[in-house]
């Protein structure tokens, strides 16, 4: 019995020794260790094998990270408001109430071996944020306890934002913290949605704010952008969304009888017309290029038409016919110019071929005459 206790104590001591060694190794090369911060700076007055209570972690970190004079020594432009923000977050509020299952600093940043956010190995580097949040927010059991579902991160992973960030490597594409905040994380309210989206989608937001839809949405308590685009699983918008028929997004609220139907039909037809004009011009230019013709001017006009098509899709957010029609008209005109350049190149190609065929006939005629002349010369002996 006694020997069993001795063995257990020895194993526990060895295990503590090993984890302390691992922590020391991790700290030595992390952002703290390389700045001269030692174990005692965080664990002072404690056994270093013992982690500080979860409710104290944020305050412990804030001792340094909320002290501008101290932090300036390491980085003159470093932020020192993380703790203040944390206190306003859902995480911070819950933690203050003694709910220790919510996130604190070390859950996202790690305790030992912390790297800077700009380091791609950091769990809070842009490409890793969603994975870090998913550790809790993707756990159905954990989130169920708070009356929340576990789908946001999976939904975001299927969005255009995730594709941009993770597949195309576009570090400016939004991840969880871009919309919810990082230290002050909480879901945006109904009236704040447009402010969140407008951080990147500036023009769409401006057009929406100036549109008649804004006051309508406000009056019925609809969450602006979310109504049509959703929140986490934001898909690539399609021109087919704008219609009063079938599964179209507009058709959810509008039909022929509801005000605005004529605008929806006009926008739908405008987008369809411009898309078809762009596709047709592209086909003509490609045919000309494959035949060896240079149609750079046409390609330039086509790029212009495509820009107008993008602009027209943005102008949809004005929810009005006049500004949209103006953009579409310019786009169609540019697409026509591209088409004309392609047609002209194809006509030029035919002209060249006809000209060269005539030249070939003349050359062959000359060859025949030459042959007759050679045959008419006196034969050698």
């Amino acid at each position, binding site marked *: 019995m006694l020997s069993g206790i001795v063995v257990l104590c020895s194993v526990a001591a060895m295990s503590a020794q090993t984890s302390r060694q691992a922590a020391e190794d991790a700290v030595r090369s992390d952002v703290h260790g390389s700045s001269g911060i030692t174990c005692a700076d965080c664990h002072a007055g404690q056994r270093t094998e013992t982690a500080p209570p979860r409710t104290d972690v944020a305050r412990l970190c804030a001792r340094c990270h909320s002290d501008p004079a101290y932090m300036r020594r390491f980085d003159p432009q470093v932020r020192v408001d993380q703790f203040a923000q944390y206190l306003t977050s859902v995480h911070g509020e819950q933690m203050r109430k003694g709910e220790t299952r919510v996130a604190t600093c070390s859950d996202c940043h790690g305790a030992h071996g912390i790297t800077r956010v700009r380091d791609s190995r950091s769990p809070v580097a842009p490409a890793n944020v969603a994975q870090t949040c998913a550790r809790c927010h993707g756990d159905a059991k954990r989130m169920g306890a708070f009356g929340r579902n576990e789908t946001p991160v999976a939904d975001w992973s299927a969005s255009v934002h995730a594709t941009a960030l993770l597949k195309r490597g576009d570090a400016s594409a939004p991840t969880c913290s871009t919309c919810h905040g990082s230290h002050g994380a909480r879901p945006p309210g109904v009236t704040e949605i447009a402010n969140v989206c407008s951080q990147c989608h500036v023009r769409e937001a401006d057009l929406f704010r100036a549109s008649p839809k804004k006051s309508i949405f406000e009056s019925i308590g609809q969450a602006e952008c979310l109504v049509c685009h959703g929140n986490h699983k934001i898909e690539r918008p399609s021109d087919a969304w704008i219609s009063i028929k079938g599964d179209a997004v507009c058709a959810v609220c509008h039909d022929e009888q509801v005000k605005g139907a004529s605008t929806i039909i006009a926008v739908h037809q405008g987008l369809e017309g411009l898309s078809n004009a762009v596709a047709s011009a592209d086909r003509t230019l490609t045919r000309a290029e494959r035949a060896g*013709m*240079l149609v750079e*001017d046409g390609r330039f006009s086509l790029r212009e038409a495509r820009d107008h098509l993008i602009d027209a899709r943005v102008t949809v957010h004005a929810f009005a016919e006049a500004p949209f029609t103006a953009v579409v008209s310019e786009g169609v005109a540019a697409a026509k110019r591209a088409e004309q350049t392609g047609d002209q190149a194809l006509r030029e190609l035919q002209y060249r*071929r006809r000209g*060269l065929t005539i030249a*070939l006939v003349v*050359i062959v005629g*000359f060859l025949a005459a*030459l042959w007759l002349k050679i045959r008419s*010369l006196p034969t050698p002996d």
Partner: protein
Amino acid sequence: MSARLRAWVEARVPMQALIDAMRHKTVPLHRYSLWYYFGGMTLFLFGIQVGTGALLLLYYRPSASEAYESVQFIMARVPFGWLVRSIHAWAANLMVGCALLHLVSVVFLQAYRPPREITWVSGVLLLTLTLAFGFSGYLLPWNELAFFATRVGTDLAEAVPAAGDFIVRFMRGGDDVTGATLTRMFGVHVAILPAITTVLVALHLLLVQAHGMSLPPSIERMAREQGRRVRSIPFLPHFVLRDLFAWTIVLALLAALSAFYPWQLGTKADPFAPAPAGIRPEWYFLWMFESLKYMPATIAGISGELVALIGFVLCGILVLLLPFLVGHREHARRRVRWVAMFVIAFVAVMTMIALRIPGEGQP
């Protein structure tokens, strides 16, 4: 009036003696006479290259920032610019083809026999210059395919021991293919090569005129056995008209190729972009390019690339000195024909293998 004008011109530019000499000069007529026309066709194509090249020079700008755009301008804006550029590009390829056929015909008809050694040497040098025209002109449109092919082509020289780095830097005007390489290639293409070629063409033609057309030994033997003279035709007008006939066929071919297969420009070279798939040189360098792929990394401790390079250079020297190595020995000339057949088969097979791998086609 006409007689008086002719007399006036003759008094100042005496040509009658030359015309009379051309009427009296004869060219042999036999079953291999067709091969006599490839030299003339090559010369005709060289003339076309000089003419179209001069027209292109009016608009072409030899800098990395403007070369591609200037060729684009020539093809899209300059009246008949597309035709001039297309003819220049197609004629370059036909010229290499005609020059190669001319060389092969000279080997098989044994026209390099004494006293035509210098004619042969000048001809081989002209073929080398034609290939150099092709290599230096390839980069000038500054398109993607040409850029990377030039990089690969110039990289080859790096295998030369001791002087490799210097040769590469000399060809590129720096460490990599840049605007400096383009300017260098342009200078070589429009000034240095034409100057040397003109002198060599003059020498080659002078020697051809001085020695006359060579008679294949089999024709000579047959005529001797049958106790008759080999048939011949006057140089003027018989041979000249036949030559004109061949040139007109070339012209018709060029017109057809330019109309139905206009030479494309491709995309502008981006030195910072990765090399696209299917990079390969012009068709006449393909056999070398393909042969290099089959070389092991090292042969007896020497780099495989260097061994191949030494092999190519040695082959070139052997071809250049062929008449001196063979001399009057008939059995040696027969062996040369067998070796030539093997070389042609090797080059054809290697070229076909290289062509089977999908590339980007014409630049």
